[in-house]
């Protein structure tokens, strides 16, 4: 199963987050609305109660009379939802509003003076109601027994209706908002992911052979990726042409020794000894050709993705390995590393370069080999860039001027030559140095033998 697209991942995630966020907002809003509606109701009930109390007075016999008519007509309309009762604290109902006609509502009584309480109750028929009870006494009478409990009851159905209505509107608006936000997000995503889509299309076109590289301008987040893809494509095609060239050279240069061998086999007059000698010579030649061309093809070269390496680590490895191999020769080898700077070079290439140079030095030296790694300012370069300088010096016979000229000269068809001794290693070193835009110098060393200097850009 293919994994979901970035677009749908973002939309699914955003959808969940929005739904969660808006649900919580909705619940909070609904609860707040209900609380404030109930608060308003309670305030109204307090007013009703105050009006009810104000409309009463006590006569000389201590009986309570309604001296004003109540201004609220709902008290007089049966089933209006607003009810009131006055209960003497001995249990007698002194007065109940005409709106309570035919209804039975149990409510609290027996409140002492000054006590008041809101309570959620239900009518006998199961309607939700809110009651406000308050305890009162008249004049000097202070005992609870002679007091009255005034009760105002309001039907909660109206509030429920309001809340329901509010909830309905709320969820419709929040749902609408979610849809609008998701649509906006989709559009934003589409716009944001346009460069990615374009890059994918361009890569598709490269695959189809319509383009060689990714060409358009890309935002900062993607330009690293597209530049690296371009670098990879370039490196790949360089590798490919190097392989092709090496294979071509290999095939071409192997033909000559093969022709010599065939000639030798077909020559009827040659002795076994001559034949053996010819075969031996040609095997050696073919071996060198194969070795040189294959190693040249295997050289990686600098790419945008080459991780920096510590040249000291590689040099030490090569140095230790060669000290082991040449243990019998008792070479006084010295490795001096005067830099900790890292180098953008493929490890195998640096090892090949150092391996060949140091191996040659150990092979040809009398006793002493000096290997030095240091940093050097390039005097020829306008910006005086810093380069890594690798110097390998020995006290051997040195390198002939003829070989020096051949190695330094570019485009030397080395595969055509019989390469031996210093030659094969130096030819490979020269190739690697060229690949990294470096410089190779051959000098006479203060020790008496050859001094090879390699300059590599960092």
């Amino acid at each position, binding site marked *: 199963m293919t994994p979901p697209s970035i677009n749908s991942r973002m939309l699914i995630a955003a959808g969940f987050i929005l739904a969660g966020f808006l649900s919580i907002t909705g619940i909070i809003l609904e609860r707040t609305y209900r609380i404030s509606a109930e608060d308003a109701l309670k305030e109204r009930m307090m007013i009703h109660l105050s009006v009810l109390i104000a409309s009463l007075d006590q006569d000389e016999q201590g009986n309570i009379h309604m001296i004003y008519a109540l201004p609220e007509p709902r008290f007089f309309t049966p089933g209006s939802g607003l009810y009131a009762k006055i209960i003497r604290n001995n249990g007698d109902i002194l007065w109940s509003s005409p709106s309570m006609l035919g209804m039975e509502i149990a409510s609290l009584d027996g409140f002492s003076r000054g006590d008041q309480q809101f309570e959620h109750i239900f009518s006998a028929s199961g309607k939700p109601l809110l009651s406000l009870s308050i305890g009162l006494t008249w004049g000097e009478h202070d005992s609870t027994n002679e007091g009255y409990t005034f009760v105002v009851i309001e039907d909660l159905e109206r509030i429920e209706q309001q809340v329901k209505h509010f909830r309905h509107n709320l969820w419709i608006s929040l749902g609408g908002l979610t849809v609008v936000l998701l649509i906006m997000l989709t559009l934003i995503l589409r716009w944001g992911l346009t460069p990615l889509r374009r890059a994918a299309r361009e890569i598709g076109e490269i695959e189809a052979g319509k383009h060689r590289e990714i060409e358009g301008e890309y935002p900062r987040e993607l330009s690293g990726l597209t530049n690296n893809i371009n670098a990879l494509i370039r490196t790949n095609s360089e590798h490919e042409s190097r392989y092709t060239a090496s294979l071509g050279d290999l095939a071409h240069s192997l033909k000559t020794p093969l022709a010599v061998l065939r000639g030798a086999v077909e020559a009827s007059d040659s002795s076994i000894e001559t034949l053996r000698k010819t075969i031996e010579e040609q*095997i050696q030649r073919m*071996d060198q050709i194969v*070795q040189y061309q*294959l*190693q040249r093809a*295997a050289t990686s070269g600098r790419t945008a993705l080459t991780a920096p390496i510590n040249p000291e680590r590689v040099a030490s*490895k*090569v140095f*230790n*390995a060669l000290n*082991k*191999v040449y*243990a*019998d020769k*008792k070479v006084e080898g010295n490795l001096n590393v005067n830099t900790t700077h890292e180098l953008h070079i493929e*490890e*195998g290439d640096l*090892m*090949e370069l*150092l*391996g*060949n140079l140091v191996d040659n030095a150990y092979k040809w030296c009398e006793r002493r080999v000096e290997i030095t790694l240091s940093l050097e300012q390039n005097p020829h370069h306008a910006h005086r860039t810093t380069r890594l300088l690798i110097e390998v010096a020995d006290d051997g016979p040195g390198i002939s001027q003829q070989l020096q000229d051949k190695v330094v000269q570019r485009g030397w068809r080395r595969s055509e030559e019989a390469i031996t001794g210093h030659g094969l290693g130096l030819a490979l070193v020269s190739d690697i140095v060229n690949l990294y835009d470096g410089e190779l110098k051959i000098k006479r060393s203060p020790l008496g033998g050859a001094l090879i200097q390699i300059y590599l850009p960092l």
Partner: protein
Amino acid sequence: MRVLIVEDEEELRQQLHHRLVGSGYAVDVAENGEEGKYIGKEFPIDVAVVDIGLPNMSGIDMIRKLRELGKDFPILILTARGRWQDKVEGLEAGADDYLVKPFHMEELEARLKALLRRAAGVSQSTITSGPITLNITTQEVTLDGTLLDLTAYEFKVLEYLMLNAGQVISKTVLTEHIYAQDYDRDSNVIEVFIGRLRRKLDPCNEIKPIETLRGRGYRFNLIKE
């Protein structure tokens, strides 16, 4: 001297086997890393020739495992790829020298001899003890400059004793280093070789180069000039 060859290519393995047996080595062969590791672990090998590119367990892994097991005999690696990365990796794993394919058999033998000498702490190709001189490369032994006529097995016994001069070498050890794994051994043969060597090296019974330590073995005592 007992040499282990680990090479998966049959033709080359046989050529190496044939050549080294011809040169007087006791030769054990293995065609993969597992087998090579087993032989290297279980038998007293003096030197090994290991191809890096083996199937399953690579030559480098095999060398690493043998070194982990404390086996310190010298190892020469054969590599088809001439890349320095491979050579350095092999040498880091514990090999002592390398040879790139294709190679000359003379070169291989010279390297093996150098490794054996190095392992024995001898730097030249000749070992001299008073009037006796043994040349590892030419496999010749002279007494006061006169070439002695030794058989291949007599030479092997003398070479092993002289390379390990001063040490007591038991008959079993001597047999194991002279004969390959699948050889039917008879330790009496060693006594016969020692007897003949004594007669040839010391006809007048003056210098007594090979000492017998009863129940323990033999010791070659170097005479410094």
